[in-house]
């Protein structure tokens, strides 16, 4: 089976620049969000420098409408947010062999400025959330 992102076509303006990379993958800086309606609410964050590097992502509010991590202005420094409308928030999903046990990392939300196309994974230093929040909670 051909890899679905092997021949990924994207526009230059779709590239989101992660200046610091993503912890664990600091060498990679350019990513695109790939959305397929049939996979909603899940989306992909694919590295354009090496498309084999990819993450499943989701808007955390879809899992927990009350998601409200403590984030300081300092942590968002450099992302150049001028308006709340510019903010896109995702969390990275870890798929498990048993998909029902899949989790999302609520401690490391991705903040993206969709106007400036820059992003960063923020480290939330609080006990409120886990790096492994269940995704399909009610199915257990």
């Amino acid at each position, binding site marked *: 089976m051909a890899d679905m992102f092997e021949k990924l076509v994207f526009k230059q303006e779709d590239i989101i620049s992660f200046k610091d990379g*993503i912890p664990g993958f600091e060498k990679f800086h350019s990513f695109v969000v790939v959305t397929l309606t049939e996979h909603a609410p899940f989306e992909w964050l694919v590295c354009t420098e090496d498309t084999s590097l*990819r993450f499943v992502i989701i808007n955390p509010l879809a899992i927990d409408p009350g998601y409200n991590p403590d984030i300081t*202005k300092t942590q968002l420094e450099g992302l150049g947010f001028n308006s709340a409308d510019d903010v896109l928030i995702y969390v990275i999903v870890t798929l498990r062999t048993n998909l029902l046990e899949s989790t999302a990392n609520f401690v*490391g939300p991705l903040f993206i400025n969709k106007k400036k196309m820059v992003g960063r994974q923020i480290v939330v230093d609080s006990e409120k959330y886990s790096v492994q929040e269940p995704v399909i909670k009610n199915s257990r």
Partner: protein
Amino acid sequence: MLVLTRKLGESIRIGDDIKITVVELDGRHAKLGVEAPKQVIVHREEVYERIQAENKAAALVQKVDLHDIAEMWKQRKTK
């Protein structure tokens, strides 16, 4: 590693603009105050390591189809 002994209330300075002060001592716990420029991001080491490890686990997804989990999600929603 450079090891320095500090008493309660004493500080160390890193470069020109980072200052770390021992704010409180309680048995095996030390509470540290960090003064650093806005662009310097400070967090506890283990939190960063946990995120790194979780990112690496999440990146193991290769040829997966999100179709199955999207279906599970829909079923969860209708419950």
